[in-house]
């Protein structure tokens, strides 16, 4: 890139750069490029069109130290590291809802952009929020990073390099993809305990934060001590959002609101969860299905639906309307009582659907079973939001019903089958103990659940979505038409059948005495 080269930027970036140049460096690009007055506030469509043709010098971009980018698209930030060598503060946020907005209307940067952000070596403060098309973040090349806020990125699976940030003093991380892997989280907390002044992590991340070993139930005492040290002790009663705890645990309700509990409450919940598992499962020799069935039965027997939550203002503190959802939908949310959270499910034995899902997720997570929270709407699925064909159809424009927004669980470690612990509990408590909503296929659960777009295959861009569908389609064909088996002999099959049967018989005669 030559020094005098004129650089065009994507609109989401250009509008912010123009604002920063005007506010901090007295450079009026509107006047320079269009001969008009500086435009502040919301820009019109025409303004945005004009911005596409604005050009910037390398020197101008080198002046930028702060960017607050809203509703960027995949590819908008793919060169951010080279374009802005002096960037110290970066915030990338989006207002869209990838569960219920048609995919073409979802604003999000992609993995190419996040790779480039990971190379902005001057960054001190980074916020990445509600970016549905990113899958992993590597922070290891950001040695100056002091504040990291990574939240509500619904497909974000892995965050790495957190243990390579010597300056980190504030870490916020919640509401990311259910299986979120923060590599060496406990190690990072121990290493940075003198620097870290504030930690706000997802409730589901607590076991990772203390290095909990799901095989033997041990944990990293140093990490627990470091959490206590950073928190300035662990105070009883530090339970709710008004806490002055330095280490808090959060469950995201949507991009606008959260349930937050203090470390004492988190510990209480964790210990209760361990106790529950101790009572309902043998220490080992149980299958994934054993665990799922036992946990759902426990919830059905012990946790009741908070029916009154919808009607009592003191418990709901006013319903709200989530972006992309019908205007009159009143969500059942209580900031005070947290009835959508795992804490109320496990500690108060009362919650709404999302509480059941999160309580189950926490319990299964302690046994190393990976799960995801699934957004859906009650009712027969006639919309097909989760159908990959619709997901990729640019003309698809469904009208969402005004029914109840609901939450269920996907057992990722067991063929991605679905359970609805809330409906199971409701049936169970009315006398039907058959647990009809346990481990159902997508087809089965869709008979009375409208799954959200996220279940179409969960992806960061449409191209890979199409690719995945094609892979599945071609594999199914090769099984159906025997193409996959063309080089096999009967003896090969016989050997594998015998091997499988041997293990099946071993399980049937298992030491725990369970039969199937």
């Amino acid at each position, binding site marked *: 890139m030559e020094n005098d080269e004129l650089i065009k930027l994507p609109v989401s970036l250009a509008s912010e750069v123009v604002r920063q140049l005007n506010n901090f460096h007295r450079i009026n690009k509107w006047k320079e490029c269009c001969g008009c007055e500086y435009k502040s506030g919301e820009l019109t469509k025409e303004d945005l069109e004009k911005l596409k043709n604005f050009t910037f010098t390398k020197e101008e971009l080198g002046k930028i130290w702060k960017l607050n980018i809203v509703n960027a698209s995949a590819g908008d930030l793919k060169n951010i590291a080279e374009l802005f060598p002096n960037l110290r503060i970066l915030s990338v946020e989006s207002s869209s809802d990838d569960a219920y907005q048609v995919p073409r209307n979802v604003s999000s940067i992609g993995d190419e952009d996040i790779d480039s952000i990971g190379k902005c070596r001057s960054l001190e403060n980074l916020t990445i929020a509600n970016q549905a098309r990113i899958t992993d973040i590597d922070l290891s090349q950001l040695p100056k990073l002091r504040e990291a806020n990574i939240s509500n990125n619904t497909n974000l699976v892995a965050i790495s390099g957190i243990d390579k940030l010597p300056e980190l003093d504030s870490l916020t991380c919640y509401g990311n993809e259910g299986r979120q892997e923060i590599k060496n989280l406990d190690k990072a907390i121990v290493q940075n305990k003198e620097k870290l002044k504030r930690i706000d992590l997802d409730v589901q991340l607590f076991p990772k934060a203390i290095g909990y070993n799901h095989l033997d139930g041990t944990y990293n005492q140093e990490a627990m001590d470091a959490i206590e040290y950073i928190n300035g002790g662990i105070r009883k009663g530090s339970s709710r959002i008004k806490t002055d705890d330095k280490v808090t645990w959060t469950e995201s309700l949507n991009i606008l609101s959260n349930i937050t509990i203090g470390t004492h409450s988190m510990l209480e919940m964790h210990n209760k969860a361990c106790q529950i598992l101790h009572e309902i499962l043998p220490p080992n020799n149980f299958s994934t*299905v054993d665990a799922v069935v036992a946990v759902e039965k426990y919830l059905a027997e012990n946790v009741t639906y908070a029916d009154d939550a919808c009607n009592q203002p003191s418990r709901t503190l006013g319903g709200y309307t989530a972006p992309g959802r019908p205007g009159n939908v009143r969500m059942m949310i209580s900031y005070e009582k947290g009835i959508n959270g795992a804490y109320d499910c496990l500690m108060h034995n009362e919650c709404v659907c999302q509480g059941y899902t999160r309580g189950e997720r926490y319990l299964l997570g302690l046994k190393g079973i990976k799960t995801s929270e699934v957004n859906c709407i009650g009712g027969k699925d006639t919309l097909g939001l989760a159908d990959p064909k619709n997901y990729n159809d640019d003309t698809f424009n469904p009208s969402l019903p005004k029914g109840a927004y609901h939450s269920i669980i996907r057992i990722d470690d067991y063929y991605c089958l679905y359970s609805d612990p809330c409906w199971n509990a409701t049936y169970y408590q009315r006398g039907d103990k058959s647990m009809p909503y346990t481990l159902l296929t997508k087809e089965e659960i869709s008979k009375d659940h409208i799954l959200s777009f996220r279940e179409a295959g969960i992806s960061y861009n449409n191209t890979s979505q199409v*690719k995945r569908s094609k892979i599945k389609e071609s594999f199914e064909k090769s099984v159906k038409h025997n193409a*996959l*088996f063309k080089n096999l002999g009967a003896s*090969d099959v016989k050997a*594998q059948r015998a091997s499988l049967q041997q293990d099946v018989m071993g399980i049937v005669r298992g030491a725990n005495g369970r039969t*199937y």
Partner: protein
Amino acid sequence: MEEHINKSQVYAEVYAALSALGGEYIRKTPQKVLDVIADRRDKQYGQKFDENTPLNEKTLSKEAIAMLASLKLDYWCKTASEKQTLQDLLSLHDKKRSKQPLSKDNKKA
């Protein structure tokens, strides 16, 4: 894929294949069989079969393909003729194998 893999890796491949095939195939397979595959699979090894990995003779081991064939014969075939077609294909291959001439090296020996 010719390299030899262990049993838990075979289960990891069959698990990935079943997950890709989805509901209809999973529903037809007995739960105790699904449990063995899910619980005894090598999860670490299974990570190489993400949703973007094509599943075919090049990426799956012969053992995994053979186990899938046994599942098809035992649980997935809808009709007797569908089952017979696969059995015939497998027998044909066995026959071909037995009729194959000795390799040059073997002849020399």
